[in-house]
């Protein structure tokens, strides 16, 4: 084995993969949220459709989005592998009395949160992303371009009129928040970034991030449902 594959298969290497892919996904979430916030503009989807066209046609962003798909899969597969390895390391006999401190709950359930998020993601991609990719959405004129673009606003607005889907979406965002609550701090700790001077700051930003980003995503369907 080369030194690099030895590193990637070591326990620390496997955690570093989780950390770096996780940090990439956290940066992506901010960009995604900024785009989604265009939905709150009361312009019949003009800003959102312009944004959606830009994101799917800019060569640099297209390249980054292919890495994004790869990193999502890498994060998920590596996570499942770690989960299995860690269960095997624990052995078949469990403790008769389980003792979990409240601050450990999110960390202990990362894999479950991850699985729920992955299921949400598949549904999410199938519902919006795939339709955009297949080009089956009706065209609409926007001011920013001299040609019509796909109207992604239509399926989004339709989905957010379904109360069941809105509830499902909000619940999934809560799970994303719990995953991030542990994941943010944890990804820095894994990289060895732990220091009395800035660890409190990292933890603080992590909590703000874990609350604000999922909340931002969750507000949109609730708002659009209420505004009908």
């Amino acid at each position, binding site marked *: 084995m080369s*030194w690099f594959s*030895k*590193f990637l298969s*070591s*326990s*620390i*290497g*496997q*955690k*570093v993969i989780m950390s770096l892919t996780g940090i990439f996904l956290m940066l992506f979430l901010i960009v995604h949220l900024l785009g989604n916030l265009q939905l709150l503009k009361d312009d019949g989807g003009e800003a959102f459709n312009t944004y959606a066209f830009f994101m799917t046609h800019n060569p640099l962003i297209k390249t980054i989005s292919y890495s994004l798909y790869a990193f999502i899969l890498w994060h998920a597969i590596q996570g499942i592998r*770690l989960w299995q*390895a*860690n269960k*095997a*390391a*624990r*052995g078949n*006999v*469990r*403790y*008769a*009395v*389980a*003792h*979990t*401190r409240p*601050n*450990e709950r999110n*960390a*202990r359930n*990362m894999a479950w949160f991850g699985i729920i998020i992955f299921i949400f993601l598949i549904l999410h991609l199938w519902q919006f992303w795939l339709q955009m990719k297949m080009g089956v959405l009706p065209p609409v004129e926007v001011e920013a371009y001299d040609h019509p673009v796909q109207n992604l606003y239509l399926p989004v607005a339709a989905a957010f009129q379904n109360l069941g889907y809105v509830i499902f979406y909000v619940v999934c965002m809560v799970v994303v928040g719990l995953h991030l609550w*542990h994941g943010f*701090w*944890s990804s820095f*700790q*894994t*990289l*060895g*970034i*732990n220091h009395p001077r800035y660890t409190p700051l990292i933890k603080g930003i992590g909590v703000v991030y874990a609350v604000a980003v999922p909340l931002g995503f969750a507000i949109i369907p609730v708002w659009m449902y209420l505004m009908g």
Partner: protein
Amino acid sequence: MKLNLKIWRQGGKYKGEFVTYPNLDVNPDMSFLEMLDVLNEQLVSQREEPVAFEHDCREGICGTCSLVIDGQAHGPMKGTTTCQVHMRHYHEGETIVIEPFRAQSFPVIKDLVVDRSAFDRIIQSGGYVSVNTGQAQDANSIPIEKEQASKSFDAAACIGCGACVAACPNSSAMLFTSAKVSHLALLPQGHVERQKRVLAMVAQMDKEGFGKCSNVTACEAECPKEISVENIARMNREYLGAVFVSDKKMG
């Protein structure tokens, strides 16, 4: 006071099961291990097999005693080994569940005794400094800053009991290994070999089949010496440095 004990028995006639010992007469001044001594004396007088458990110094400094008491390694007291837990913390009629440390890399030998030799092999792989033998040099010939020495000592306080592995839902040995890596890397004597050391110790830790740290921090909470997870971050830094910056061979 009377207490009920529910103890994991394994080996001999027991195939790995809980056995309840009701109404044990316990003096509140006893230590936890003294209570087990009393139980064993009763069992011997009844011609029963005594409960096997490990102990040595009974002063909280050797790391020999183990036990998971009501779901917590070394019992409910913070920063305390099992031998330093006293029965005055329990109430009349309480049932205490006593289990061995559970991890694939810590197989149960008998009852509450587990094989922790995996830790010895991690130490053998790199938990040492190489020095020429000869006359001991003057104690102050290598100046060490007080804060640095204290930090190293905080890590060196690890007694290698294995509570971190027992507490971790992943049975990860990273708190132990990182304490040893930190303790030596922070001192000039250990600084020289630090890259070689961290590569070898992490490789051995992985070979022993311990799980991978997911920063749950249960280890820090249950460690009888309150070793900080800061050491795990330091070990990760040391490891990344050794892999990407040094020319040392990967283990």
